[in-house]
């Protein structure tokens, strides 16, 4: 496919009087795992939310699968929205639903009516994220942090998306769980041929997952390329971010895992 799954052109964002982004251009190629990194408050999550249409930039254009999210008829917009899935930082599971109903929800909304088929599909998604079938009837409040993320990932994958958007996929997980989750996303990426965009400040995750890295600082994309290319850019922010002793250790760990 010639078009990019996500393309930002001249995106600027303003909160009140403060400019968060100034003229951001970024094109995410299909099949890549692109990590957005940057200091706290650099607007990584804001950019992610603009990609999925939860926020609108003050200037510029966000295109998903070659079109603006709000282009075309309602039907076309819906079809476009269903081509990507989003994993929220805290899972954002519907707390009134069981795990099963959470994963089945998008499928039911899409129009899957056959209960037997629905059950098989949900169990398949649960197996994909390595959840046992017996958690299906539990409520989100009864799950551990790692399980919440897995269920949320299964829900994001329910409609067979081509693009997966992950907001801090490993935040709040212990190192063991976090590396297992990274491994899971990697295997899904390989198996399903997804395009993945993630925001993270965890360098382990970054090194283990990302095929491309976009560094966001002072409202601009400082660098966009493979991890090697990015770390070799001479810039004070990149020096601080990637070349500190702790960062080096984390990158080495992540690359070792990857």
């Amino acid at each position, binding site marked *: 496919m010639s078009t990019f799954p996500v393309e930002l052109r001249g995106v600027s964002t303003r909160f009140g009087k403060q400019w968060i982004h100034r003229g951001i251009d970024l094109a995410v190629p299909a099949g890549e795992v692109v990590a957005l990194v940057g200091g706290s408050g650099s607007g990584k999550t804001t950019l992610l939310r603009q990609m999925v249409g939860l926020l609108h930039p003050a200037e510029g254009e966000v295109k998903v699968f070659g079109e603006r999210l709000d282009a075309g008829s309602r039907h076309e917009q819906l*079809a476009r929205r269903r081509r990507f899935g989003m994993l929220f930082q805290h899972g954002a599971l519907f707390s*009134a639903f069981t795990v099963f109903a959470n994963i089945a929800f998008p499928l039911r909304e899409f129009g899957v009516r056959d209960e*037997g088929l629905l*059950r098989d*599909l949900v*169990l398949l998604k649960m*197996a994909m994220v390595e959840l046992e079938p017996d958690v299906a009837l539990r409520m*989100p409040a009864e799950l551990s942090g790692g399980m919440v993320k897995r269920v949320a990932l299964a829900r994001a994958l329910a409609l067979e998306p081509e693009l997966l958007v992950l907001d801090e996929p490993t935040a709040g997980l212990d190192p063991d769980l976090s590396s297992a989750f990274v491994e899971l996303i990697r295997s899904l990426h390989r198996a399903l041929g997804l395009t993945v965009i993630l925001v993270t400040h965890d360098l382990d995750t970054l090194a283990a997952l990302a095929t491309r890295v976009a560094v966001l600082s002072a409202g601009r994309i400082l660098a966009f390329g493979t991890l090697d290319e990015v770390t070799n850019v001479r810039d004070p922010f990149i020096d601080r971010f990637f070349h500190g002793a702790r960062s080096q250790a984390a990158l080495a760990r992540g690359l070792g895992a990857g």
Partner: protein
Amino acid sequence: MPSDRPPPVIRIDAGGSGMQVALAGDWTLQGLCPLPEGLRRELAVAPPEGTWNLAGVTRLDSFGAVLLWRHWGRRRPARLDLPEALAPVLARAEALPGGDLPAEPGYRFLDGTAQLGRAVHAALHHLLGFVALVGHILIGLGGLLRRRDYWPLREISANFYKVGVRAMPVTALVGFLIGVVMSYLSALQLRAFGADAFIVNILGLGIIRELGPVLVSVLVAGRSGSAMTAQLGVMRVTEEIDALTAMGISRHVRLVLPKVVALTLAMPLLTLWGSAVAILGGMVSAYVQLGMSFDYFLNALPRAVPAANLVIGLGKGAVFGLLIALVACYFGLRVRPNTESLSANTTASVVASITVVILVDAVFAIATRSIGLPYG
């Protein structure tokens, strides 16, 4: 649908060695849901025991794989021509466990009895919990008596403003309208008997002693009681209450006590305000309907309504305020960290506080039946 998505098709040939089924196109969720009618019919007659040729399939996702898997009766057909690229997708569907989910048990005969038992148990549990809450507050108060500089005065003042001052406009509006309506209806009846002057007695006694406190309580329970429950509930959800506990700060002193004190103090004043505006409304209506001057009305009021009624009315206001705040805080602290529990407890809080107010009002009516009634 973009043009690079060939639609799913199925072709069935009766060849020499049994039926040949050939699939082509995208067998994905986008193309298969809802299942096109023609495809559904053709798939229904495609025999699982025939030869299946999937070489023409451009894309297969887990939806398509599960659909085929179910059609094959959860078995791989004996003769299956599967391209290498699609094998892992089908393998995932194959790994599906066949058993059923642990099902919710259905409704049985004795469940009704069990439900009744649970309801009684829950009522007792609420009563105990409520007593425990009051106990905690009293213990907190005891502690505060010894450490005077720990009184949460700022919180009390902030709550007083929120539940008292901010409630004045709506109380006035509702009170005024109720006064007008009551006066209007009574005036119609009284005029038929030529007993116009008694409108002062009806309005004065009715509003000051009974209607004012109850009306304001219902308004406050809906407005401030629900807000208190929701606020405590959200603090529970966001773990703010746990944070307070971890700092060694009593939630009962810091969160519950200010609300209870503020509402107990604010309610008599709100009652006074609401009753006054309701009587004003009644006066206006009596002037319009019966031509009764404001002068006459105000002069007759103290004679028709002994001062004890005002004390009863304001006393009721204070007690109702105390109860509403306690009930609201009780349910607020019971919220568990999910949205369902938050809404259930907020509803329970409003329903319970209005019920309690009306029950206690009945107790007041019996207890004060020989006080302040001029013709008693």
